[in-house]
């Protein structure tokens, strides 16, 4: 009686199977299409990763189907029926040897491409690699472009620009806790650990106008979720002109409001933490703002870069990013700036292109 009821369930289950398979396919597809997907391949590192990954996925699928079919099949076939007597089998050495050897073979099939890929992604950077230092802060990324002598030629934040086809040798450092540098489409992650000189080398392979999304992948405190960054991959020439532009000192504001904003900015607490090259603002605690107007986002990828969001951020950054180290500046949030002053500052910052 019980067995029959269960049999019914299994039959219903069989009808459900195509639906389940469909859902799985849609899921995989969704995984591929997402903007921060690991399955899109836009760098040699991720390309190397997908060598063993494809092999592992296929073998995993095969093993799962075999286990599922055997378990379900035996459960249905050998269920209690009138007249059935269980066979008193204690084991079968030959079979057991076989299913010891099968996992050994599977593991070998995974191990070989794994080690191949592992050595590929761990190679030393080529001599002509672009040298970059990425520094994790609670909760934003600082990026420094270095010359061949290791001197900083440009400091920027949260948006990393790279040329297509040239290796980027990124030294990973942290100012405080452990963070992890991850741009899924281009490369797997490597942690930024205090006291450890970690690095990652990868070559972006697909220039495009839209950014590749990255995110901190190691729990780093209250706003771990809000520690995002973007990678823009340019054609080599475009990259060179971007780098040249960014190395310029800050532009002198043109409009009245922006000019007024600069004045307020330089007299306020802002300069204690931020640098705007070419002005008296030389703070080094927060992101360099020399060309902040040219960035697409603020607050490490959390807000789109526009006047309203800048005002909101300056007024009370903790409201956007819990735990933010930037104290609230708006008067109503306990700071020293009026709404008009904040409006002027944000106009100034947007003019810094």
């Amino acid at each position, binding site marked *: 009686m019980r*067995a029959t009821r269960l049999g019914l369930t299994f039959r219903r289950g069989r009808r459900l199977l195509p639906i389940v398979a469909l859902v*799985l396919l849609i*899921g*995989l597809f*969704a*995984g591929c*299409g997402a*903007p*921060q*997907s*690991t399955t899109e391949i836009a760098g040699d590192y991720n390309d*190397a*990763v997908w*060598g*063993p*990954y494809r092999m*592992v*996925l296929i073998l*995993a699928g095969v*093993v*799962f189907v075999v*286990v*599922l079919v055997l*378990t379900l099949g035996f459960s249905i076939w*050998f269920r*209690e029926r009138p007249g059935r007597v*269980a066979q*008193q*089998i*204690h*084991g*079968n050495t030959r079979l*057991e040897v076989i*299913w*010891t050897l099968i*996992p050994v073979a*599977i*593991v070998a099939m*995974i*191990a070989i491409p*794994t*080690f191949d890929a*592992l*050595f590929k992604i761990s190679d030393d950077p080529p001599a002509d690699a672009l040298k970059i230092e990425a520094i994790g802060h609670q909760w934003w990324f600082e990026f420094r472009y270095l010359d061949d002598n290791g001197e900083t030629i440009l400091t920027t934040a949260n948006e990393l620009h790279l040329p297509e086809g040239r290796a980027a040798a990124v030294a*990973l450092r942290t100012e405080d806790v*452990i963070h992890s540098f991850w741009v899924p489409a281009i490369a*797997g*992650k490597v942690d930024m*650990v*205090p*006291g450890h000189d970690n*690095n990652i080398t990868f070559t972006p392979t697909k220039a495009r106008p839209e950014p590749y*999304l990255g*995110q*901190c*992948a*190691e729990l*780093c405190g209250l706003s771990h*979720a809000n520690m995002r960054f973007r990678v823009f991959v340019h054609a080599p020439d475009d990259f060179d002109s971007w780098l040249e532009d960014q190395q310029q000192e800050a532009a002198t504001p043109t409009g009245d409001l922006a000019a007024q904003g600069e004045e307020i900015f330089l007299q306020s607490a802002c300069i204690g933490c931020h640098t705007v090259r070419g002005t008296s603002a030389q703070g080094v605690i927060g992101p360099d703002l020399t060309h902040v107007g040219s960035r697409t986002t603020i607050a490490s990828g959390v807000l789109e870069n526009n006047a309203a969001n800048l005002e909101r951020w300056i007024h009370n950054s903790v409201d956007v990013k819990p*735990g933010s180290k930037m104290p609230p500046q708006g008067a109503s949030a306990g700071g020293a700036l009026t709404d008009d002053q904040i409006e002027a500052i944000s106009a100034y910052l947007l003019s810094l292109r």
Partner: protein
Amino acid sequence: MATVAGTLARPANVGVWSWVTTVDHKRIGVLYGITAFSFLLWGGVQALLIRTQLAVPNGTVIDAERFNQLFTMHALTMIFLAVMPLGAAFFNFLTPLMIGARDVAFPRLNALSYWVYLGGGLLLTSSFFWDAPSAGWFNYTPLSNETYTADMGIDFYVVGLLILGTSSLMAALNFCVTIINMRAPGLTMMRLPVFVWMTLIISFLLVLALPPLTVGLIQLLFDRNWETNFFVAEQGGDPILWQHLFWVFGHPEVYILILPAMGIVSEVLPVFSRKPLFGYPAVVFAGVAIAFLGWAVWAHHMFTTGMGTVPRTVFAANTMVIAVPTGIKIFNWIGTLYGGSIRFNTAMLFSVAFIVTFTIGGISGVMHASPPVDSQHQDSYFVVAHIHYVLFGGAVMGIFSGIYYWFPKMTGRFLGEGLGKMHFWLMFIGLNMTFFPMHFLGLAGMPRRIYTYDQGLDWGFWNMFATIGSFVIGISIIVFVWNFFRSMQQPKTAPDNPWDAATLEWATSSPPPEHDFDVVPTVRARDPLWHDRDHNIERPEPTGEHIHMPPPSYYPILMASGVLLMGLGPLSHLALTALGAVVVVYSIWGWALEPTD
């Protein structure tokens, strides 16, 4: 009953005090079970809060601070307060019965383990009233240093885990001694029930795994409170040291959580297939091999920390090798089904489903054994899917199978089969709805431990799907609790061996008397009751001789309160630690001089 001056007399064995002072392994098992299940419910509530916050992009149900506390406490609650002690509930209740003994080797120590666990669990949980730990269950430095997490949450973590570790260590030593020394005549090691084998294996794992964690916790406590610098990079320490100490414990811990479930399934599958376990020696040796290899893989949790290529190669190879004994177990379970005459009741459904759901977790484990693949999986939702298929699809499914299977032995009553099946199907569907989509989210680049995510990332659909699934699991648990209370109101109708099972616990009444067996059984084969059944060997009549059982004692709970006081010291005033030490020393003295009857 002569009492030495200044010590306490043995308490009477009645009423509430009989539970507080009990040293009976079955009662201690029940206490473990009820306490751990309560913590399981609380951990489940935490999980539902987490899932509610993540159901939609930019959720506003829970703020960042509370969210970090919730996922930290969810892991700590489920691992240390629910799943580990549920395993302990089974091996406390069952081990002596399954080896034909009348109690464990050290009954008072067994009670002490429970009370220390209860104290540690309450202390850790009470942190919600002050500051709950928020740096993840792995609690990496420097985030967990005083500089970056100044509140008391991390101190609760350190002290809570130190106390819980003490409890586990005592229980583990107790069960090593019990299983090796107290087996019934004829019960050789290769006739031990697989569940008992797994208990022995995890006992050894615990004895060896807890010391490195303890060392790390004490170093962290000193770093935080007394200005040492074991993990402080700027002062010559190394945060990676913490990761090594934690994972040398943390990886064997995974096997400590899963092996009891593997043992349960290895008991349930043969009984309801009505045939012996396929390849018993292979299943046992595979368990030993998993435990042994489990010591050589910890650094696969650290593939992305900047380890060199050679260590990554070695740890990857070791990790992949674990797939071999695990595969052996899975195929032997499937082999057990083959040729059987399978009775599908709730216990069996959970065990059969375990094979499939655990396999999913096992397979994804092999996937991130590959360091390049892991560089994408690490700290993403793919790993969240993986650990939940191992710990929920594996450990929890196995535990529920065990609850349905041994409920008649423990209570003399059956759990309702109709509600049981409803519980099973809801839980099975809910678990797959919740955790399978997390693979997709991981592939789509969603990191773990984020309290919010943006609209534009295409993570919304599967997160909502997973949240709905988690509430289906919640409903299944309500069905189980309802079933439990309804069943407890039924008369005690369970016979000694309702399932026609093969192991010794079914050779005594349901529930068993305090002394377990009227006559200590003699074992003649691997599946003793089936052997005796097939050879028409009757159970011997009781001879009526006096059976000496250990009387109850005040000292376990007294000493446990001393241990708790010692732990409260670093959280408040060190004078409490001194006071606690006095209580512990007094308890040891009284314990040693306690009269034996």
